[in-house]
Every structure is written in structure tokens, then in C-alpha cells.
């Protein structure tokens, strides 16, 4: 892979990972649509993508560094004590509970899911599915707002009626974590399904995004630790890949800052429209 192509894939991954539009779907679909010399079936594809994800995880750790210090401390305290006593410990518990389903499902379905990476049309179809999930969550939220007679014209006032991550119960965290399993399919966005799950569980958009970002970090780090050793076996240009990882991390950091601001009053609709359009174009054009 040329440095330019690695840089392009890094930009693509970094900019799409945290947006609810499926970075993996883009990594499968875009090279196919643009006829780039990039084979998703190559042995080093998944480790390279995972390396790029580590850039994203680093960006999220940087963005939420103070929270992560409190979460890790809370996890250790609660684990030893066997009881949750404060908000940090509770958040740590919710993240652990939300991470378990994807960790287990992803681990055992890794091989069959990898075969889907060779199929841009499948990724296109899953992009349309992703659009339906995002739209469905927003439809449910709008119905709920109408029932509660909220002022739907004022975004921030409307959002104030909903809860924060710390108010989530364990069952809802497990439900959001189970939603995250869908994101193992290329085209279904991890950020999208977890945000949709968060909305259904009654979180504000911004809080649903924060929970999605917090949930992403341990699973991405774990995948990185497990997959990256394969990169060293396959004789790849590590310097280029590491530069691509840094680029991906910088773009992911900027994306996260933008999304946190956007979701103060914004909805998932524009991302649903984009995914539907890209999915339909892919289904029409990809070979």
C-alpha cells in the first residue's frame, strides 16, 4: 500500500469512526467505488484498520482523560468493595456491562464476519440498514417528545428533558452494549447503533454520544492489543502505518469535538440520509 493510499484510508477512518456512518463500511465501500488498489481481503487489512482504530482510541482517551482516570479508579474501588457507591463507580460498571456483549460476540464471530469485508454490496446494504436504525431511533424519540409535549423547536430545551449516562440503569447499558454487536457488520455504525440505543434508553443526544465514545474506547484498545502483533508478522511498512495512525487520531479528535457540540441540539437524521444515499449508490455501482 502506498503512503498516499494509507493516508487516505487513515483520513477516511478517522473522520468516519465517530460519526454514526460506519468507518468499516466506508473502508470496504469507498476503495471499491473509487477503484483504489486496496483489498479488504488482504491479510493485513484488519490489523491495519485496528491500528488506525488505536489512533481513534488515543484521541478518545485524550478527550475524556479526566473521566477515564475517575472511571478506572471507580472500577478498581467498586471491584474490591463489591458495591457501587458513587457516580464514577456506576459509570465504570455501566461501561463494563456494555462492553461484554460485543467482546464475546466479536471474538467468536471474527472469522465469518471477515468474509463480509470482501463484499462491497453487502456493506452497501448494511449502510441502508444503518440508516434505518438511525431513523427508527429518531422516530421513536420524536414520538416520545410529542407525548411529553416538549418544545421541539428549541433543541437545547428539548434535550434537557432527557437523562445523562450516570442515570442509565444496568439493563439499559446491557441493551446498548448488545446493540453494539450489530456494528461488527461492515456498514452498520458502532457509534450509530450505540447512540440509537442510548436514545431509546432515554439519554440526551449529547449523552448518548458520550456513552458511545466511552464504550468504544476499551473495545478498540482490546482489539488493538490483540490484532496489532499480526502487523509485525506480515512485513508491512510500519513507519507509514504509524504516521497513518497519528493522522487518523488527529482527525478523530476533531470529529469528536465537533460531534459533542453538534449533539447539544442536533439529531441523527442527516447521518441517516447520508448512509442511505451512500448505500444505494454502492448497491447500484459496486461490483
Amino acid at each position, binding site marked *: 500500500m502506498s503512503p498516499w493510499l494509507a493516508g487516505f484510508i487513515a483520513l477516511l477512518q478517522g473522520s468516519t469512526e465517530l460519526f454514526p456512518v460506519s468507518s468499516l463500511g466506508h473502508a470496504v465501500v469507498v476503495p471499491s467505488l473509487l477503484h483504489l488498489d486496496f483489498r479488504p481481503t488482504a491479510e493485513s487489512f484488519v490489523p491495519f484498520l485496528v491500528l488506525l482504530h488505536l489512533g481513534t482510541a488515543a484521541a478518545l482517551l485524550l478527550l475524556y482523560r479526566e473521566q477515564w482516570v475517575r472511571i478506572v479508579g471507580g472500577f478498581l474501588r467498586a471491584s474490591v468493595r*463489591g458495591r457501587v457507591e458513587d457516580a464514577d463507580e456506576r459509570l465504570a460498571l455501566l461501561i463494563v456491562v456494555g462492553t461484554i456483549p460485543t467482546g464475546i460476540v466479536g471474538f467468536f464471530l471474527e472469522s465469518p464476519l471477515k468474509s463480509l469485508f470482501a463484499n462491497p454490496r453487502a456493506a452497501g446494504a448494511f449502510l441502508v440498514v444503518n440508516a434505518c436504525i438511525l431513523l427508527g431511533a429518531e422516530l421513536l424519540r420524536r414520538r416520545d417528545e410529542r407525548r411529553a409535549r416538549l418544545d421541539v423547536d428549541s433543541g437545547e430545551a428539548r434535550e434537557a428533558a432527557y437523562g445523562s449516562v450516570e442515570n442509565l440503569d444496568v439493563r439499559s447499558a446491557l441493551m446498548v452494549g448488545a446493540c453494539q454487536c450489530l456494528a461488527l457488520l461492515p456498514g452498520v455504525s458502532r457509534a450509530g447503533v450505540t447512540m440509537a440505543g442510548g436514545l431509546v434508553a432515554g439519554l440526551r443526544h449529547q449523552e448518548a454520544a458520550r456513552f458511545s465514545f466511552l464504550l468504544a474506547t476499551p473495545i478498540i484498545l482490546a482489539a488493538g492489543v*490483540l490484532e496489532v502483533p499480526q502487523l509485525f508478522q506480515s512485513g508491512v511498512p510500519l513507519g507509514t502505518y504509524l504516521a497513518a495512525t497519528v493522522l487518523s487520531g488527529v482527525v478523530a479528535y476533531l470529529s469528536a469535538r465537533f460531534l459533542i457540540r453538534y449533539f447539544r441540539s442536533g439529531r441523527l437524521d442527516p447521518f441517516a440520509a447520508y448512509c442511505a444515499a451512500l448505500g444505494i449508490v454502492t448497491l447500484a455501482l459496486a461490483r
Partner: protein
Amino acid sequence: MQSRSGNMPLAIGLLVLAAVFLVGAVFYLTATTSLLASSQGHHYKHGILALILAALCLIGANFARRPQP
């Protein structure tokens, strides 16, 4: 089922599960196998996952044995 001493049957169940995962971890980290894997060989990732699950089960057992507020 919750009492002043917590949920002891659940705690014991989780302890047993933790022991099973620990045995699985040792098995995957030391033996060559194709059990729950795509090919014959050492599957260190399976071993690490089993270790993590064992740790989570132990933490869960600790939660279960204590009375929760």
C-alpha cells in the same frame, strides 16, 4: 433472593464459572487446539479473553456476595 449476605447462590455460580474460564485460559495458552477456533494451533487471544472473563466473573461474584444498597 437478596439478603443481608447478598446473593450467595449467584456468587458461587460465578466463582465456578471463573474457575472454568481460568482452566480454559490455561488450556488455550499452553495447548495446541482447534476447539472454538478456526484452525489448529496456539490461540493466545482465546486465552486472554478467557482470563478477562474469569476476572469479570470474580468481580461479579464479589458484587453478588455483598448486600447491595
